[in-house]
């Protein structure tokens, strides 16, 4: 039975990649709010201007979990500039699309990586 989500979304929902924390992460981003039904926390390990590891914890719907998982896959190995260029559209497309009401989950993923990179920049500014 085809579900409300694409097979890609369901795959990442059922088998989310990179769930967890990074101790002493170089950047942490947190977006969303459980009151709105979704909250995403993203941990980054950066080395030589590259994202060498990414992990997440997410409270939320299927699309939120899948977007988080897909995002971590997408940014691993990318430079900071490349990661900053990722948009919600990229995430949604990589998931073979999201229902219109769930687009905000991919927006959250975009915001999470931006927030984590800002945290990284702040920590490594000095």
């Amino acid at each position, binding site marked *: 039975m085809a579900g*409300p989500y694409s097979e890609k979304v369901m795959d990442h929902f*059922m088998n989310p990649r990179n769930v967890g924390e990074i101790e002493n992460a170089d950047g942490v981003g947190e977006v969303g709010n459980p009151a709105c*039904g979704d909250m995403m926390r993203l941990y980054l390990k950066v080395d030589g201007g590259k994202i060498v590891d990414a992990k997440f914890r997410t*409270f939320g*719907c299927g699309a939120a*979990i899948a977007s988080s998982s897909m995002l971590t896959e997408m940014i691993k190995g990318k430079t900071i500039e490349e990661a900053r260029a990722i948009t919600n559209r990229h995430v949604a497309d990589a998931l073979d699309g999201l229902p219109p*009401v769930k687009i905000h989950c991919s927006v959250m993923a975009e915001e999470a990586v931006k927030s984590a990179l800002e945290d990284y920049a702040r920590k490594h500014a000095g």
Partner: protein
Amino acid sequence: MAHIFFDHISTTPLDPRVYEAMKPYFLEWYGNPSSHIHDQGQAALVAVDAARGAVAGLVNADPREIVFTSGATEANNLAIKGVAEAHAKKGRHIIVSEVEHFSVMNSLLPLGNRGYEVTRLKVDRDGKVDPEDVRSEIRADTILISVMHANSEIGTIEPVAEIGRIAREREVLFHTDATASAGHVPLDVRETGADLVTLSGHNFYGPKGAGALFVRDGVALASQLDGGFQERGFRAGTENVPAVVGMGAAAGIAKAEMDGWGDRLRGLGKRLRDGIEATVSHVHFTGHATDRLPGHVSFWVEFAEGESLLLFLNLRGVMAASGSACSSNLRGHDEEDLVASPVLRAIGVPSDVCTGSITFSMGKGNTGEEVDEVLGVLPGIVRRLWDMSPTYLDYQKRGTR
């Protein structure tokens, strides 16, 4: 894989006997009841009128008091808008509870532009209306009180007989939406003192496409579907004959058997609830503990989101709902259509956790083995989501919420 349907509040499987009753009205007797001058039309008319008698019998009404509609939504629209329009001369004040279904709540919206005022009654933590609140909100210009019989989301049965008594005393019309309860728990329109009652075929093992509004004899009501002279002028349009016949058959079966179903389902409900309580922590049950729909178990789990719970349950063959079907509707235009459940807010569930609600609603076909199977998968699913959740992590680290 398992196929465990625990979502009977959204719709119920058709009873095979109901389907048998409907069958002749597809290929053999396809007539239009308005064309009763000939055999085809006459067969249809006789069938519709027999169904009318059966539906009336379910709630102790007179057949003349049953108006068939396309479903509960239409019946609720007809009740609310029909009374508002027909009684505007008396007044424009309407009282409803704050836990009514969208089809009652949203029927009030267009009235707002026409000078109607609505009072929304608060409910207690169990989702119950206090009848005394009804009494104190009645004004000289109050034309209608609408309080549902049972809430589909949290299962609570409202004190409709008390409300009906107050309404009659004060000579205000009383409508009750019995979509979730009719055919499951007894409902006698005379005892309830209701002037209008909404019934839904597909909610008691009948077909989709047939609902009914009980309209007490003599109650003035403005038709909302205008056209030909069907349903004594209350509702135009060719009758959906097979569906109406099916609703009649389902009403007859429910009347005869619902007491037995109820007893069994109350037992299954207890087994499910006790099992959840024993195996899943951070669970909060919703709705009234005893005044509730049989087989209905609703709760929310901290640190887990409802849609994800439902998706994982479905992957294990268990079908359930999270809050009202509407609040998990993925067909909207944008996220504004993903509304948090107004019912859960009304009973005081904190908004940061109410997205994690689950409604298991069992039906007459469910078994104890199915309950056990659900109990077997639920704790693991909850655990899995907790392990992914930043809020659960924080809770564990802090040892507090």
